[in-house]
């Protein structure tokens, strides 16, 4: 007899040790997220996966599923808040979707559409951030970094390297590169590394591939992120 939680009134089975996110994904329930990826230790920082567990606000990606949990996920209140959190991510960086080569393949953009985000809502910060195009095959546009640490985790946990780290405090948080020059060209990063491909935004890009798939034929051009996410992450969670 498997244990269950409820999400928006539906019974969802879970196994001991699973998070709410894992149980939900395995059961085909999408919970918006950006810093979470099923192959990596959860980080819990973007707060898009905020759910209400028995009235208390929790991050679904880190909170363990437990018998007796009544989880609210797809409610107007949570969607409104998630939209505002997404807007926060937009205004703190410099995200110009029409001119970004990641457009259509970008999870930040896709989740914003999914949450029906139609404007920035908050005043823009217009921070001064650099572009690091020093590496032969990979470039970093710091303007688009949302500090999800997926590249940090991928490099450490999958590639067996340690190319990235997050530094600084508060609104001055920023991505740093593990080389004496601080530049990507002086690291051991390869274009084939997981860390070079995992960025949910257009902050880390593989050079000379940006427009190989034309706009209009990209991942989120014909499918919403909930559908894509469940299709690609379902197996990883539900093994």
């Amino acid at each position: 007899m498997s244990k269950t939680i409820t999400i928006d009134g539906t019974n969802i089975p879970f196994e001991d040790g699973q998070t709410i996110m894992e149980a939900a994904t395995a059961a085909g329930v999408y919970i918006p997220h950006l810093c979470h990826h099923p192959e990596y230790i959860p980080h819990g920082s973007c707060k898009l996966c905020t759910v209400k567990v028995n009235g208390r606000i929790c991050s679904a990606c880190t909170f363990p599923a437990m018998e007796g949990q009544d989880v609210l996920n797809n409610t107007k209140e949570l969607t409104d808040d998630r939209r505002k959190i997404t807007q926060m991510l937009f205004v703190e960086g410099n995200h110009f979707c029409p001119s970004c080569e990641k457009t259509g393949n970008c999870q930040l953009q896709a989740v914003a559409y999914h949450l029906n985000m139609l404007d920035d809502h908050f005043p823009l910060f217009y921070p001064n951030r650099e572009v690091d195009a020093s590496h032969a095959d990979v470039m970093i546009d710091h303007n688009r970094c949302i500090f999800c640490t997926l590249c940090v985790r991928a490099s450490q946990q999958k590639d067996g390297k340690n190319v990235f780290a997050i530094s600084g405090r508060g609104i001055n948080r920023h991505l740093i590169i593990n080389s004496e020059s601080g530049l990507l060209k002086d690291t051991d990063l390869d274009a084939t590394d997981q860390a070079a491909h995992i960025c949910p935004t257009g902050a880390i890009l593989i050079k000379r591939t940006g427009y190989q798939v034309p706009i209009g034929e990209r991942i989120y051009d014909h499918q919403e992120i909930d559908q894509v996410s469940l299709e690609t992450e379902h197996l990883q969670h539900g093994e």
Partner: protein
Amino acid sequence: MKQFIQDLAETNGSQPTHLLQILRGVQSRYHYIPEAAIEQIAELLNISRTQIISVVEFYSFFHLTPRGQYELLISDSITDHMLGKHSITDYLSEKLNVAVGEVRHDGLVSLDNTSCTGMCDQGPAGLVNGYALTRLDRPRIDQIADLINHQKPLDLWPSELFQVADNIIKPGLLLNQPVNHGSSLQAAFARGLQETLTEIDKSGLRGRGGAGYNTAWKWHLCYEGPEENAFCDVATHGQPQRYVICNADEGEPGTFKDRVLLNSFAHQVFEGMTLCAAIIGAQQGFLYLRAEYLHLYEKLQSVLAERRSSGLLGDNILEKGLNFDIEICLGAGAYICGEESALIESLEGKMGIPRNRPPYPVTEGYLGKPTVVNNVETFMAAASIAVNGGDWFAGVGTEKSKGAKILSICGDCPRPGIYEYPFGTSIQSVLNDCGASDVLGVQIGGPSGTFISNKEFDRKLAFEDLATGGSFIVFNSSRNILDIVNNFTHFFAHESCGFCTPCRVGTSLLKKQLDKIIDGHGSAGDVVALEELCKLIKNHSHCGLGQTAANPVLTTLQRYPELYQSRLKEISYEPGFDLDGALETARRMAKRNDSGAHLAQVEEEL
């Protein structure tokens, strides 16, 4: 430098956990962390350079570029402001010919602001190379400027500049009867350790840092930790699997009681930690001391040494087979490290970022081992309870808040200092004792707490009414509430660790939105937007910092909505930035400043 750093690393056992202590040494010697030092430390500790850089960039007292040989910092607490911080800083800046935030051209001195240094009863206060300066006034600044310009080493400066008074005005339950050295431990061993935990449980003691978690329950959860279930059997107790941490990162603006407890009651605090170690079966303890209390460091070390030589610390304590020792670790300027899991991260040599919970520190704390983290005052109370029994403590206070609370009272009152009250005492009687008059309101529990108006002084100090970690700031009717809220809101934006989106971005947005209203650029919807933003930050932030960062706005908006409304312009919308100001660069480039080069933002106000 190579030799210096090598020695420094060796003194710290070349352990990555001691990264902050090593960087403190480097910063203190070179007044910044040079690139060569980063390389060398990375090699010696076998950690990545990025780990070192991230730590340097996280803590306020580390710098990647040189600061002055005399690093001057002025406390930016609201109470320092009320004591004349602005004019003192201006005078200092003028006397030393250095702007705030800058290093003087000759590299001798740098000047900057810093978050509350915990000297609110004797401000305006500051720090020079980490050591506390109190009661700054013009004569003292003349003196300091002279000493710096003559490059007098700090140890030759007159000691009165560094004098820190305890100012214990009204002692109560704990402060009136400190326990004799060793008597808590003797009582606990005589009674039995399990029985002593029962006494602590009976006392109803709750954590004194502010959150108020039941202390006995925390200790119980720690020894019951999943990976072992040994309890109290100190004679056969094996490896150091558990840790005791005393949280002396007293960063809440307006709080300074731990400073006084550590200055005058350190034995009892250490005794409380040792008692906890005996009960939960820990062999190692840490006192995490905020960097601003560097002046206490040597004294605390000598108290530890004294306890070791009298058999109250170290191997086989009181010949009862208990092995336990305490190490003092200094912070480096980060309010967030007062949050227990951030504190543990910091003790492990990392950025102070609060962990995801569960697991809680009682099951997975320092180095993943079960850990008790308690406030200074909690350990002190536990030591008293071990001697006097649970009923002695539980006989005082209210139903849900047993015992007494030590307050740090400051702001507009003639007798600032330390006061101890049974829980349940009314705010009015506290105000009477400290001599406050013409009171506008009181900030209870610091910026993260509650602002109460003068219509609420019959409310009580208690977890069930007004909880406080000790901060009690009095404001008289000459004060402007929006100035207070502004100071607090900027504080939180500065101290946010940046881990989660709602707090990282939200506290900065809140600062902007509040500035917009206070500066008179707000329009009709702006107070509503302010409140919405507050709720978002409060509900969705990762830890207590974000969850309370909007309290200054929320608690005053609730009480004085007209104050916010009165700042709004009578137009339907104004953007979040100064339209005309945005043209300044263009005007400079065009070398124009005539009226045609300015944008009229409002229809001519007639």
